[in-house]
């Protein structure tokens, strides 16, 4: 049954996406590590973690698309799940520093020495072991999403109300993590990491490996999402998105379906966060900021929600644009970014991928008169969640 579902995920275009991602996972590190410096095809050093960051963002956008594009839940708090995954990884990396911190305390991270902690707080136990941290990366966002969703969906909080309380959630977490008394480093967050699984983080090979891991994780998430979307469960999710009450009246336990999608999505977001942190070298409460969560929504919308490729394209494009603009037009990039969001909403309501798909379908319909079935599947009408 599961194999069948997974196999179905591989039909058509999905296999190409996965193939390309795996090719990137191999090609970029290989070109960075083995081609000589100055070679035209070599990916420069600083570019590897940057691309890796985009890929983790893509994963995050994909996770959001699963709940928003396919289930109609507009979460304005997905940044929180991402940040939790990141913090779990950050805590592991902090413990790995060991006695190399400035105060040379073998157990306590620097900020705890400084804030007069006498011993490690209980919630930091176990994070010196990678497997434990890895479980937490999945478990913490998953449990949070499950509990939050369980209450919210059972109470039938929908639409804008749901969006706003997810925003309230991430905002409350932002404020909480800013507090130094929380034991997570306050505003400075966790930083100054040394190594991961014994490999120094500053080494090119570690960076390359992290990049490959991100690409593969993205490919795996893509397969999982694809499998979910194409399964019977996926069809029900779309039904919930399009007409929640009707689906409920047909006898489906709508809450459970939503809860599943929400939790799965949070887990993917958490893994993305865990891969993000070692590549950018810092995790701090800023990741909980509501504005960050809104940005995730925007990547997804720009790429095209309700398609699985859209969020990946959107996340990479918007972030590459941001990286480029902030360097080239430091004073005016916000105009460009803001203008992009307005323009995409007005002129490309289905996002870049949606619009291209539509154009492609129209073109095909012109050439070959009778073939429209495929297109309707690829770009389902995104309809308002309310």
């Amino acid at each position, binding site marked *: 049954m599961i194999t069948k579902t997974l196999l179905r995920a591989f039909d058509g*275009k999905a296999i*190409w*996406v996965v193939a*390309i991602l795996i090719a*990137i996972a191999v090609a970029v590190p290989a070109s960075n590590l083995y081609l000589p410096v100055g070679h035209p095809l070599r990916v*420069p*050093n*600083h*570019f590897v*973690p940057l691309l890796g*960051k*985009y890929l983790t963002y893509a994963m995050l956008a994909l996770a959001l698309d699963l709940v928003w594009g396919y289930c109609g839940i507009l979460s304005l708090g997905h940044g929180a799940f991402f940040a939790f995954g990141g913090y779990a990884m950050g805590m592991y990396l902090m413990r790995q520093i060991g006695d*190399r*911190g*400035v*105060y*040379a305390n073998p157990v306590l991270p620097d*900020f705890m*020495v*400084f*804030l007069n902690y006498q011993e490690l707080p209980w919630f930091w136990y176990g994070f010196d072991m990678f497997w434990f941290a890895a479980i937490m990366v999945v478990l913490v966002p998953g449990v949070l999403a499950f509990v939050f969703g369980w209450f919210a969906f059972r109470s039938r909080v929908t639409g804008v109300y749901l969006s706003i309380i997810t925003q309230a959630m991430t905002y409350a977490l932002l*404020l909480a993590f*800013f*507090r*130094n008394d929380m034991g997570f480093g*306050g*505003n*400075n*967050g966790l*930083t*100054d990491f*040394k190594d991961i699984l014994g490999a120094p983080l*500053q080494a090119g090979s570690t960076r390359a490996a992290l990049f490959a891991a991100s690409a593969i994780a993205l490919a795996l998430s893509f397969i999982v999402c694809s499998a979910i979307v194409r399964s019977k469960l996926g069809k029900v999710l779309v039904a919930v998105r399009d007409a929640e009450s009707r689906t409920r009246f047909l006898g489906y336990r709508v809450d459970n379906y939503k809860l599943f999608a929400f939790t799965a999505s949070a887990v993917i977001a958490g893994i993305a966060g865990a891969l993000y942190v070692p590549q*950018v*070298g*810092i995790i*701090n409460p*800023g990741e909980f900021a509501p504005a960050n969560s809104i940005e995730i929504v925007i990547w997804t919308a720009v790429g095209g929600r309700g*398609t699985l*490729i859209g969020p990946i*394209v959107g996340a*990479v*494009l918007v972030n*590459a*644009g941001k*990286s*480029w603009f*902030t*360097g080239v037009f*430091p*004073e005016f*990039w916000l105009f460009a970014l803001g203008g992009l969001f307005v323009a995409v909403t007005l002129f490309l309501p289905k996002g*870049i*991928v949606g619009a*291209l798909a539509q154009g*492609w*379908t129209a073109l095909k319909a012109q050439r070959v008169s009778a073939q429209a079935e495929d*297109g309707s599947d*690829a*770009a389902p009408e995104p309809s308002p969640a309310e």
Partner: protein
Amino acid sequence: MSTRFTRRAVLAAALAGSVSLSAGISYAQEETIKVGVLHSLSGTMAISETTLKDTMLFLIDEQNKKGGLLGKKLEAVVVDPASDWPLFAEKARELISVDEVAAVFGCWTSVSRKSVLPVFEELNSILFYPVQYEGEESQRNVFYTGAAPNQQAIPAVDYLMNEEGVERWVLAGTDYVYPRTTNKILEQYLMDKGVAAEDIMINYTPFSHSDWQTIVSDIKAFGSAGKKTAVVSTINGDANVPFYKELANQGIAAEDIPVVAFSVGEEELAGIDTEPLVGHLAAWNYFQSVDTPENEEFIAKWREFIGDEDRVTNDPMEAHVVGFNLWVQAVEKAGTTDTDAVLDAIIGLETPNLTGGIAKMLPNHHITKPVLIGEIQDDGQFEVVWETEEVVPGDAWSDFLPESKMIEADWTAPISCGNYNTETKSCGGAS
């Protein structure tokens, strides 16, 4: 959707990436020395950092008028890290490895500095950090041209104690590392001076806190215990305006409960009507009102550059002026912009402070500064009411904290280390 389309989408994404790559590289060949400017021009910190970007452009322009450096023109490379801390690290990496800048002047918040530290260490470049900060740090690649806690907080408390006879203290700050550290040091210092624990009230507020009614009335209540009370404020940035407005409205005059602030300068006051605030204090190493020929010249040229006759100057700007002058001297002395050579050359160099005295780069990568206490005037300026007789050397590791009093930083041979433990005679960290 078809398979061919998918490929195109991914290609487009890859293309977008490579565009950003080549744009960076394309102008890397001209004969200039590049200087990175890493200050937020958008987001929450733009309010403070934009001026520092302009200061750097001004300084580089001035240097070019004098004929540049080592026979080459200087070129500023400005990027916008958008008050986003991971973006600071990304932009720092880009400045160093793509633009190949000789040094970077930038950062404001502690977290932005912490975020870029590993990048400067890894790629071996130089950062000049111009803001007063919490100390407890000294890194090989960073020069701290702002005040360490001993160059700001301690003298201010001494002043209040001796001149104003303050016996009861409110330590109010924004909840992040700089206020936490400063207050921790001050608390220890006050206790050592015999202040009882119940005469110290510590209060933390979130960033951008705007409703100060409760806290100001708490301060008022705390101040009515029959002992002279003062507030030591490490409240950050834009929370200050509503705080001072509330103080003024609740009628807390400086004669009764003075507030001494470490993060309020001329720029912050430009946004407030200072009439009701006259007499509240600030401790800095620079005030625009200080009357020295260097300062007068600087202000005149700065105003001409920026094209605004009323533009104010402030302490972090002076820190950049001093840092930039020291860097220029170091490059001239070393004859190259090579990082290791400059790091060696800069220790011990001297340049005049704009407020008098000589700023000397110390082996711990901090500088010597005079400490000034100023009272707010009704024109938004400060008037110096007290200053140290001699310049105070910056101390990276506070002597008032038990965990750091035995640590020293010395980046000259034979120690060459940022956290040398004088008890174990070894470097505390990675050794």
